[in-house]
């Protein structure tokens, strides 16, 4: 879960180190204090969310909204569940194996869904060309065309003179 969250954050341009996963047992009060202090200081250094990507606040917010929708999508959640199956079968829970498997199975599904959601949010303001969309979501025209094709087929988006638009 943590690795999937980190790779998802990286996909939308948020520093994945803003998310920390640590362990402190009930008897380790002082260690807890150390962990929290370290975490707060590290975030203080990084600055508010959005500092690292130099993007406007509304762009960061839009990307996060698309990310939340993507993480809730059934295809993405299924790929996440299949990962658990794979680890259980292979028995390899090393960090490297986890990183590799998440990058191979979860992240592409998440990225596709995130871009699709972000496109829907952007097109709410009006039609936009594919090239411009690709630039804003951080993708290429080729990748976008692959993602957009099934949406046009399903009737969620449509092609207009100005570019793509919500149907």
């Amino acid at each position: 879960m943590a690795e999937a969250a980190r790779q998802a954050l990286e996909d939308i341009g948020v520093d994945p180190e803003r998310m920390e996963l640590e362990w402190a047992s009930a008897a380790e009060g002082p260690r807890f204090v150390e962990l929290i202090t370290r975490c707060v200081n590290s975030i203080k250094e990084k600055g508010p969310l959005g500092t690292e990507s130099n993007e406007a606040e509304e762009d960061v917010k839009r990307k996060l909204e698309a990310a939340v929708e993507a993480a809730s999508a059934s295809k993405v959640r299924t790929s996440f569940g299949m990962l658990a199956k794979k680890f259980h079968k292979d028995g390899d829970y090393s960090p490297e194996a986890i990183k590799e498997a998440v990058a191979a199975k979860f992240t592409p599904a998440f990225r596709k869904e995130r871009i699709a959601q972000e496109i829907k949010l952007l097109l709410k303001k009006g039609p936009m060309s594919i090239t411009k969309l690709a630039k804003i979501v951080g993708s290429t025209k080729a990748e976008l065309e692959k993602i957009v094709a099934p949406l046009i087929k399903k009737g969620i988006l449509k092609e207009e003179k100005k570019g793509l638009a919500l149907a």
Partner: protein
Amino acid sequence: MTQEGYNPRILGFFCHWCCYAAADSAGVSRYQYPPNVRVIRVMCTGRIDVRFILEAFKCGADGVFTGG
């Protein structure tokens, strides 16, 4: 680059049996630590989903700390 007077808002998911208890014990022992973490107690960190992390950032958190 630290900004003057910047107070980060961090969301903490603490597991009831371990991290939350550790925080409790730290409080009872009068240890001082930065107040920037808002705590959500969960019964187990296994309950936490990728969505929660992303939603936390969407709602304005600058950082997320998950303690198991």
